[in-house]
């Protein structure tokens, strides 16, 4: 096995949102298609929630790219925390109005009312838990007009559940909760991800036992798994170049998994 295979494998697990690298396991794939169908229904608002690292951003990005060909859709991955900036961005993107000075909710509604749109634009808001309660309330009112459809993602915490209940309970018509992968799903995820990057040798190194150990360390969280495997292949690459006798290329070593977990903070020494 050449050393660049480990390096390539390492790069597969860089924690970046790239729909080209998006691996959907069967369960999530079904949820995705169900959610995508809901977008086409006359619903005011859709909610996507789950713990950090469960793939919400990737899910939303994938949805954006899939809808782009058929719908007018806007994705805001980084929250726009200022009210005026938020409405000015919407006015510019949706209504093609470049507003000078501050633009408040009332002014934006007037502009929206004056425009006769023959379509309902879809606005995808990632990390919506970062928006203020006032802005969230305004988004709620905006969705009530049915002139703009919002799809938002939230981290699922106690506080965020409260936000969801208070602001969106009556408006959200569909919601999906994303969860961590199971051990078997995690194996599929890792191997598919590696094979997609043509790293077949390293994909074959993942036996059930090593995946189980990874699952025990990450609890199936995709972000933690990506971080762990990135460091894992970094260590493999280091050994391969400096001390190749210390590694075997048949199966992933539990020792190196644990070393990677120590480095990433999943194991505290």
């Amino acid at each position, binding site marked *: 096995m050449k050393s660049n295979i480990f390096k390539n494998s390492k790069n597969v697990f860089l924690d970046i949102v790239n729909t080209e690298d998006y691996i959907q396991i069967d369960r999530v794939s079904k949820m995705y298609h169900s959610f995508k169908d809901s977008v086409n229904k006359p619903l005011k608002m859709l909610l996507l929630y789950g713990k950090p690292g469960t793939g919400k951003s990737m899910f939303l990005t994938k949805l954006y790219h899939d809808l782009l060909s058929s719908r007018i859709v806007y994705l805001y991955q980084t929250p726009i925390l200022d009210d005026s900036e938020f409405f000015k961005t919407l006015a510019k993107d949706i209504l093609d109005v470049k507003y000078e000075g501050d633009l408040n909710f009332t002014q934006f509604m007037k502009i929206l009312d004056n425009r006769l749109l023959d379509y309902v634009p879809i606005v995808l808001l990632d990390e919506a838990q970062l928006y203020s309660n006032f802005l969230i309330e305004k988004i709620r009112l905006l969705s009530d007009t049915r002139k703009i459809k919002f799809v938002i993602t939230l981290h699922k915490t106690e506080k965020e559940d409260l936000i969801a209940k208070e602001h969106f309970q009556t408006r959200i018509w569909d919601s999906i909760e994303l969860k961590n992968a199971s051990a078997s799903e995690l194996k599929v995820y890792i191997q598919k991800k590696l094979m997609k990057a043509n790293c077949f040798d390293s994909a074959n190194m993942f036996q059930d036992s090593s995946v189980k150990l990874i699952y025990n360390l990450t609890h199936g969280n995709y972000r933690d798994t990506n971080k762990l495997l990135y460091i894992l292949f970094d*260590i493999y690459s280091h*050994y391969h170049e400096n001390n190749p006798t210390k590694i075997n290329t048949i199966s992933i070593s539990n*020792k190196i998994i*644990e*070393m990677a977990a*120590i*480095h990433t903070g999943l*194991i505290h*020494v």
Partner: protein
Amino acid sequence: MFDINELERKWLTYKIKSYLPHAVIITSTIVISTILFTTINYQNSKNIVQDVNRTAVAKDENNSIVKAEIITAKIVDSNTQNNLLKNEPKKALDEKNEPKKVETKVVLTPSLSFIDKINKSTLSEPIRIVEVEAPAVEIIKEKERVIANEETIIHEEPKGSINIKRQSTQNDIEQVIKRFKKSNDPTLSLFIAKSYYNSGDYNLAYNYALTTNEIDSNLETSWIIFAKSLVKLDQKDKAVETLKEYIKHSHSANAKALLDEILSGEMR
């Protein structure tokens, strides 16, 4: 980037920490098991020593004292520590038939003191020396050795008559009398009668011969002692009459011989 050596060191620390509780548990288990094992072994060996040292003293119906020495014993169950054997065979068998967890055999043999006792006393009743072995298989082997009823030393007198000298003591007779009072055993009373007769106490010999006869009229010796005592008490006629009466229904050769002796005057 990472320092691989530092990472390996941290990993080693982590592994030691993760195995430490298991190691502590395993070590503790081994230590506790060893202590328990040693304690149990010690207790068992202590029991065995106690059992080996135990002197089993058993009294049979004749109140013969048997001092048993355990030659080899390895007893597992402490319930078996009381292997005191009654010399009555049936009783001993009953006891031994009860299931007992004894792994090795217990052999009881007569002690020297027992032999001494036998030598000193002239017991009328046979003394049985019981040898019991292999309780684990619950087989009792009993050997009965009958010691002569009368430990006698026979000396031939120049005249051709037989003189019987007994080695019993007054204490022996008293002991036997006590035992007889408790057990009412005719063999004991017969023994007393003979003892008294030999020591010249013909009245007492007469009484005990009569008592024996009342308990068991089939004992030939009781008739003979009775008749002899009568002769010695100058009641020759009554002795003859008694012997004739006895010979009628028993046809005893000894009784006939005695009768002839009395009638011929040899027995005085």
